[in-house]
């Protein structure tokens, strides 16, 4: 734990927000400073360009799932943008105030996210993160496929592979809603693959999965 120091923050962006003045630990200072490196000066948020830069510094591709996990840790609301508060929340929790520390924190972050209790929260978060407009409740199939790969691809590669194929092949559904999205996770967790022997279409599986299973069985 760092000792608090009397060094005052010098960034204008930090001064603009109503942050703690006294007792600001060096950590927070450094976190804020880091924020400023990437934030857009006019909007005071890190925009997609800034994120890209961040990613290159972290040596992580910006489409990598770890960025998504970071967003989750931060509690980001809008895809492609990090606010100061969110940035603070995330980095504080990761106890990282520099790029190198952030990089080092990733493996632990991944472990944390993949713990079942957290994953149950992360998974729907990933979906919501992709909703581009406020009122929208569904994401398009291609986006869904990408997301599936990202989020579940490692853990459940065979299922995700087949599922993505099916989603691209079928044309009954053009979008995926949250209910179906959650259904995918449940499917991967509960159903034996590739035997599918414990799948019972009489139970309350979303119709899209019934069709998927039928398609698989026919092949």
């Amino acid at each position: 734990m760092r000792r608090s120091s009397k060094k005052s923050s010098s960034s204008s962006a930090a001064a603009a927000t109503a942050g703690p003045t006294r007792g600001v630990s060096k950590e927070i200072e450094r976190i804020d400073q880091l924020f400023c490196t990437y934030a857009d000066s006019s909007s005071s948020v890190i925009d997609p360009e800034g994120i890209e830069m961040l990613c290159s510094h972290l040596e992580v591709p910006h489409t990598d799932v770890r960025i998504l996990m970071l967003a989750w840790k931060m509690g980001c609301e809008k895809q492609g943008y990090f606010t100061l508060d969110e940035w603070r929340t995330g980095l504080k929790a990761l106890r990282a105030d520099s790029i190198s520390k952030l990089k080092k924190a990733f493996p632990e972050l991944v472990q944390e996210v993949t713990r079942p209790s957290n994953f149950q929260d992360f998974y729907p978060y990933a979906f919501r993160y992709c909703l581009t407009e406020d009122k929208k409740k569904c994401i398009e199939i291609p986006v869904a496929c990408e997301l599936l790969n990202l989020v579940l691809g490692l853990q459940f590669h065979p299922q995700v592979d087949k599922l993505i194929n099916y989603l691209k092949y079928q044309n009954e559904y053009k979008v995926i809603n949250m209910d179906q999205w959650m259904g995918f996770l449940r499917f991967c967790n509960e159903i034996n693959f590739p035997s599918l022997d414990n799948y019972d279409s009489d139970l309350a599986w979303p119709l899209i999965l019934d069709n998927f299973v039928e398609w698989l069985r026919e092949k």
Partner: protein
Amino acid sequence: MSGGGPPRKRNFKIEEFKNRVELNPKYAERTWKVLEHAIHEIYNHNASGLSFEELYRSAYNMVLHKYGEKLYGGLESTMTRRLKEISRSIEVAQGGLFLEELNTKWMDHNKALQMIRDILMYMDRTYVPSSSRTPVHELGLNLWRDHIIHSPMIHSRLLDTLLDLIHKERMGEVINRGLMRSITKMLMDLGPAVYQDDFEKPFLEVSASFYSGESQEFIQCCDCGNYLKKSERRLNEEMDRVSHYLDAGSEAKITSVVEKEMIANHMHRLVHMENSGLVNMLIDDKYDDLARMYNLFRRVTDGLLTIRNLMTSYLRETGKQLVTDPEKLKDPVEFVQRLLNEKDKHDKIINVAFGNDKTFQNALNSSFEYFINLNNRSPEFISLYVDDKLRKGLKGATEEDVEVILDKVMMLFRYLQEKDVFEKYYKQHLAKRLLSGKTVSDDAERSMIVKLKTECGYQFTSKLEGMFTDMKTSQDTMQDFYAKKSEELGDGPTLDVHILTTGSWPTQPCPPCNLPPEILTICDKFRSYYLGTHSGRRLTWQTNMGTADIKATFGKGQKHELNVSTYQMCVLMLFNSTDGLTYKDIEQYTKIPASDLKRCLQSLACVKGKNVLRKEPMSKDISEDDTFYFNDKFTSKLVKVKIGTVVAQKESEPEKQETRQRVEEDRKPQIEAAIVRIMKSRRVLDHNSIVAEVTKQLQARFLPNPVVIKKRIESLIEREFLERDKTDRKLYTYLA
């Protein structure tokens, strides 16, 4: 045998006992001898010389002086000896005399036994019970049984003789039934065990093999009907036999033997017999044969089930062929009539031959329900049938006839799974009937509506009834219109408007066409009149549904009255100002949609006898480059010529698709409403239960597809009416 004579009159004197009662064993022996002698005499038919009183007293004394055992023993041995002699005499009897001899001797023995029992009555009442011996009468029977019936020489011969006689009778000979009766009665008297073991059991066995053989023989050479006749005959014979000379208890046993051998063992072969089995009987309406089969088969296990199963599969097969044969589907009215005929035919069979057996009625109903729904055009066709009847088929029919026919149609309607499809078509056809005024009887129409209401409830028919109301209201409106506006209208064309309430009628959106100016004037007058009395309403002219009567004068001055559709009127009126017009001209002036216009022109120019227009070129089809001319060479024998009546017809393929699609669309909200209703009351429910409940709720209208139900559930989840239960993934919860 005579009793003591009348007492002689003497001087009253008390005398000493003449007979000293002595305990002398010699006395007992002497007394016994007397009795023994008597027994023999009885058997020798010499009983008349005996004194009953004396013998009774002798026996009485023996028992009294404790010589009961001697008496009993003596009786037993004497009778036994006697019976052994009798046995020998029976044994030597030849041929047919054997039974007679047996019978005679039996009669004798019974008589003798009676007398002996009377003499030994005191012993029977005192000594016998106290020493637990068999009473005299029973003893006599047992001895008879042991020494006569069970004597080795007689036992098997008796059985063989009886069985032989029965066999002869079965083969057609006449036998002495009275004698048989006597013998079997004898066996029964000797004890049911004797009757059963020594006669009945072997009798049943022999009968079984007899009938087994006979049934094999018959089934090779007889057709089903004749075989059943023979079986029935045999069955009746056996029952007759029992009533005449067997014990009544044998009836059930022998009939079940016959039933088993002749019916049960050959059930399947009989019903499936080629050219004469059940199916042929059904086809040829062989009521007698069918009734016989029913009555015989109901006696055996699964007999009726066998008939019913075959009947069901035959009906389903025939029905299936009927509804899938494209030839038979060409004419919907014919098709439905054929269905009704089939139903009538089989109803009659069940009524006349199967005694209105409910299980058969049910089998018939389930078969019809099965195959009628194999063809998804059945609802449409049944509606067309009713349309045909209400349009012309029931012309001149009495009220009863109408009811009968409509009731029969309702029977078919009940079998439909997709009643909502029927409703859609019925509405369409009814609309056409009402608007063209082509219904044969208003009462018949209403009767049909009432029947539908009774069957399906108010909601099914509320719109149909609305249509009738509209027709009546329109009439009233028109009367009022002319009453109020007659001066204003003067000599213009006469207008008759039907005002249809949107929602009750199956109207399609209709783009307005250009009406001839004369018509337009009066239409506008009507519109202002109507909206004057009904402000806030909106009127839209349905130019695709109207008709017009036009007077036309042709080349040589022939006048005809043409009955045409509104579109046709628009087209024809154009020719008042010019003789020839191109297709494009007509299209431009009238603004009638292309497909309707083509149909319209086709009926005006290409139909023989109705070609009031001439087309160039003279091809069959309408093309956009055609030119049309007023045909002043038109002739017709009729003064009034009908062109283009809007008759209900079986839909074309694209129309059918469209209707089907609309039906599917209509079903979605109904399914959703059912789901919401169910979830509102149950709060939490699993998937299968929802599907089952929804199906149950909607089955009166149609059979919902489980996949569609699932889709609707998901849609409701998306719209946050329901959600998946968080803990048990099989359940859905209602979101208030």
